[in-house]
């Protein structure tokens, strides 16, 4: 959860339509909570207001293992330490990826972590990947 590799989030509307989207930042809050960056008034935001469940896919940029975090929306924060740190990190990510002025943190959406499971079978270990020729 260091923002090096974009994460993905899937939510579901009240009428049962899933929504799959990339997300700039998944921020570790404490052992039971993470915060997702809310940058746009989009379907992900509307869905979690209707149905608080979400699943987030994150990749460890050192081991390249992927994980699924099953989440439940708790609240949005627009001030405070979590928001301020995420705001700084979003600005840094925006500069790196050419999205300055487009990526802007509106809120830090706090989620309770229901489960964290390694995405077994999804990744090939780096040691098994051929080196460049």
């Amino acid at each position: 959860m260091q923002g090096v590799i974009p994460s993905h989030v899937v939510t579901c509307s009240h009428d049962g339509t899933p929504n799959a989207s990339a997300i700039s930042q998944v921020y570790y809050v404490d052992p039971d909570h993470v915060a997702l960056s809310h940058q746009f008034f989009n379907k992900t935001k509307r869905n979690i207001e209707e149905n608080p469940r979400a699943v987030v896919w994150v990749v460890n940029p050192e081991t390249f293992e992927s994980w699924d975090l099953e989440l439940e929306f708790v609240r949005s924060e627009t001030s405070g330490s979590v928001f301020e740190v995420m705001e700084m990190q979003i600005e840094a990510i925006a500069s790196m990826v050419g999205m300055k002025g487009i990526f802007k943190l509106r809120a830090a959406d706090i989620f309770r972590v229901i489960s964290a499971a390694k995405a077994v079978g999804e990744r090939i270990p780096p040691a098994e990947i051929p080196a460049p020729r």
Partner: protein
Amino acid sequence: MIPDRVVEVLHGPSYIQLGSRDDALRPAHTMAVGALVHDDRRTVTVFVPAARSERVLRDLAGNGRVAVGVALASHEAYQLKGTYVSSRPTDDADRVRQEAYRAALLQSALEAGYPDALARPFCLGFAYTPGVAITFRAEEVFLQTPGPGAGSLLA
């Protein structure tokens, strides 16, 4: 009908994710390793690792609702929403397509400026065999590139 540009992005190299949900509206996710848009321009097959397919196939068999997000390293992104049609184990032709997809994905990441030490293990690290080909009918296509038009319906 899926717009020309979205067909190009689906054929890659692009990052593809599939979302589903169960009867309790709990979402599920898996990455896909390649996609194929069929001649009717409405039917799409995505290839997912078999090890990650069990939950999404159970969801799709139960309610049929599927969302597929597709994005380039440039952040150009789209989302297709539709209805599950069928699934089958991937075959030799699929694997040839997937191997080309993985090589192109790595090349695109390197061209975008990502260092080899990051791009190679990430792009070539998507497990693709054994795989499952999941076919769905796209009913809506949305623009998802970050910016003012994000979320707009394209088709």
